[in-house]
């Protein structure tokens, strides 16, 4: 059990710009933390620095309150599950599981006991005598996880451990990891590309971009209050629609205007946004806040030119353009029975209760009261 703290941590590879830049992050003891970000943003590098596999160029790392910058990986009491699993190919599953315990010179009886317990827990008991080459992807993934679990480490670092699995197995393992975390109560950092993993597994998400932490928070908080356009456009699929617009004022009212679209800002946000009247803004609206029928009186009509319909079974994602707006990839999540002609103009209804405005200069969200 241990908390992990990064203070101004940076990583510079020779002859390159920083791969990780000035990261400040406190992962609480027993917390399930998600690292989410596009490829190359420095997630793995951060993980490797925490594990001690990569030098920290500057800044400080604390695990369980102790400064770890110069401590060898084997003395950090941390387990890593690599994306590639990195099972020892010349050893059987049992030997793979036992390797770490042997390295730590545990007595043979204890090794056997622990290997047995963990392999039973993960359902890999019948593969103990096999080599990794003779296992399926899902089984290898379990062995890799088992290798981390037997050592009973202070924290787990999981680098996209589910990305090699098929959709069904991934869904199963997602639940199992969460269950495991509840059982063990250990600190877990889980790196992922996957929106669903990010939203469902962790207690907090840390979103990274270009080596920097952009936003840290509980999944729903981040989802509903993205700190900037990057987070808004990255989290969830389809991502939040971001539309270049102008804010106009008329009497008491405020309107978001872009092309043929003119939507009234809810009264609750007027004060917060008034400073941006007659200025360009970026208007953000989630796909699920655009509806086919007007169920609430304050939902506002919107003329959409249908570009494509993605029929997903549980829902229909309508991809549309709005006349006068350059981008034609605005998405709306509609009921599963929704049908429309491609190229036709349809009337939809926007619910602005969860709208966001972003400053086009800084791309940061303009603060507003919570809905």
């Amino acid at each position, binding site marked *: 059990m241990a908390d992990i703290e990064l203070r101004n941590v940076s990583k510079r590879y020779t002859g390159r710009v920083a791969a990780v830049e000035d990261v400040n992050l406190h992962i609480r003891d027993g917390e399930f933390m998600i690292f989410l970000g596009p490829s190359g943003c420095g997630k793995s590098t951060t993980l490797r620095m925490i*594990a001690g*596999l990569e030098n920290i160029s500057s800044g400080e790392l604390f695990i369980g309150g102790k400064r770890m910058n110069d401590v060898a*990986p084997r003395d950090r009491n941390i387990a890593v599950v690599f994306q590639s699993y*990195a*099972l020892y*190919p010349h050893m059987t599953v049992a030997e793979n599981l036992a390797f770490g315990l042997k390295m730590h010179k545990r007595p043979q009886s204890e090794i056997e006991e622990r290997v047995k317990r963990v392999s039973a827990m993960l359902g890999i008991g019948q593969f103990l005598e096999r080599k990794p*080459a003779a296992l399926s992807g899902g089984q290898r993934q379990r062995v890799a996880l088992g290798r981390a679990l037997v050592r009973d480490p202070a924290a787990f670092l999981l680098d996209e451990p589910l990305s090699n699995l098929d959709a069904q197995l991934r869904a199963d393992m997602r639940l199992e990891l969460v269950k495991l975390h509840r059982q063990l109560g250990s600190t877990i950092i889980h790196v992922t590309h996957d929106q669903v993993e990010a939203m469902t597994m962790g207690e907090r998400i840390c979103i990274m971009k270009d080596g920097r932490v952009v936003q840290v928070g509980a999944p729903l908080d981040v989802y509903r209050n993205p700190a900037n356009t990057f987070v808004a456009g990255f989290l969830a699929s389809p991502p939040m629609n971001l539309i270049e617009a102008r804010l106009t004022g008329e009497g008491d009212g405020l309107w978001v205007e872009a092309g043929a679209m003119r939507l009234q800002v809810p009264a609750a946000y007027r004060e917060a946004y008034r400073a941006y009247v007659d200025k360009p803004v970026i208007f953000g609206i989630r796909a699920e806040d655009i509806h086919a029928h007007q169920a609430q009186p304050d939902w506002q009509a919107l003329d959409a030119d249908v570009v494509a319909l993605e029929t997903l079974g549980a829902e229909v994602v309508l991809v549309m353009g709005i006349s006068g707006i350059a981008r034609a990839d605005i998405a709306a999540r509609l009921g599963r029975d929704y049908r429309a002609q491609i190229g036709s103009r349809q009337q939809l209804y926007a619910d602005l209760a969860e709208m966001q405005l972003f400053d086009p200069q800084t791309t940061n969200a303009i603060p507003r009261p919570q809905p």
Partner: protein
Amino acid sequence: MRLKTIAPHIILVLFACYIALPPLWVLRTSFVPDSVAYQPALMPEFTWQNYVKLFTEGTFARAYLNSFIASAGATILGLPLAAMTGYAFARYRTGGQISRFVVLATQMLPPVAIILPVFALFRMVGLTNSVTGLMIAYAAINLPFLTWILMGFFEGVPIELEWAAQVDGATVWEAFWKIVMPVSLPGIAAAAVLGFILAWNEFLFALILTGPTTATIPVALAGLQSSNGVQIAEISAGVVMGILPMLLASRFIQRYLVRGLTFGAVK
């Protein structure tokens, strides 16, 4: 359609003959008496005599043993050094591009250019006319080549394997010996066999650094050409005996080289 498949096969057969005929003819010559060896007939007479003579008279049997000792010894001596150097180059980029190039550059030097200085040095320390001296020379000559080969193999070992070992509690040294070495075993075996073959076939150093009792197979075979004219049948028998271990070794290499390097470590 039939012509399309037959034509390439005819070409292939011709090529196969072109390559295989000389060694096959050596094999044939090794089983006929010297007197009829030059006749174009396929097998005018059959005899084991060439082999019997080769191993009972003269120094060939001794040379065979010397070759084994020098080649095997050089491999055992050079391989661990090459493994560690190759690993340092592969993993830590020790010395950067330049050191890699220097290692390769030593291979471009013609052996004749260094044989005399080596001879002078060996004479000073009394290593001429000794199989041990030859072994040391071969280990040194093969080192760059083996280093280069093993570097390639180590570069193919995913670094995550070492990382996994390190977080599992291994030191860098333990990770190398317990994980990297066993995983690269096919590559190391292949390098060992290649190093052995190079030493086995080496002629120039053996000629200069050895005497009558310490000669190796290539030198002994050359000896058969000069003393009493060219004893072509006996030489052929010697060549066949010289090639035989290589044939076995090359099968061994093949088996290892075709096997996947990491066999299932990484998806």
